[in-house]
């Protein structure tokens, strides 16, 4: 099974976070992830979509699949053209927040998924990719 894009969503407002959750759930069910795995994927999607909307000034979420005949993965990519993160290491730490939230978004989603990649450039934007394997 070659990598395949399933859906691209625009994340502009807080109501798009709800849609991001629903679409992540849809594809997680489609790929027959267990209920606990679905819940983890949807929760990570919610956290990262909120980051894109609140900190990145909006952006996109791309839902895709990856893997081979034996193992499949659901991949979520969040991209914004916001200010970027000055100190990624600090931003990953639990409890670090610039918005008065819990500061669990990045670190928490990393724990909920199997793979986590972040690429942030000051003044250019941020891309976060998370993957959950079956």
């Amino acid at each position, binding site marked *: 099974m070659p990598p395949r894009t399933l859906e691209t969503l625009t994340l502009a407002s807080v109501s798009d976070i709800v849609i991001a959750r629903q679409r992540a759930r849809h594809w997680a069910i489609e790929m027959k992830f267990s209920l606990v795995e679905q819940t983890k994927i949807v929760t990570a999607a919610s956290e990262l979509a*909120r980051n894109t909307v609140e900190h990145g000034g909006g952006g996109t979420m791309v839902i895709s699949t990856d893997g081979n005949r034996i193992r499949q993965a659901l991949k979520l990519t969040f991209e914004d053209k916001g200010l970027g993160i000055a100190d990624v290491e600090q931003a990953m730490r639990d409890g670090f927040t610039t918005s008065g939230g819990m500061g669990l978004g990045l670190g*928490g989603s990393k724990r909920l998924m199997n793979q986590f990649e972040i690429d942030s450039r000051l003044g250019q934007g941020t891309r976060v990719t998370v993957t959950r394997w079956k």
Partner: protein
Amino acid sequence: MGVFLIVTIQVDMHDQLAMKLQDDLTSAIAKSESRGVLIDISSLEIVDSFIGRMLANIAAMSRVLDAHTVLVGMQPAVAITLVELGMSLPGVRTALNVESGMALLHSLSDHPKESEEDASSDT
């Protein structure tokens, strides 16, 4: 007074709706002089850090207003995810279902004066 408020969250809430619930509920506690709030989240399919923070805030605010909050009905998958996310909801009391949640609220707000209306089911 011994009034308890019961809230059932039935929809996938966006962030502003969650904030509104927090504000409305806090006002309702003060207005009705409630001694306890029971929040049923059995229909919630996820609790992310935003909803988690809202629930913790409601518990903290109700405490300041001399009321107790009990969260009931959390789905096991939600509980697993919430802990892994890093939220253990400190300060929020939980019960498995509405019935045991009500029993907990009664025991928490039991003041030694005349016992209230309940002689109902214990769990």
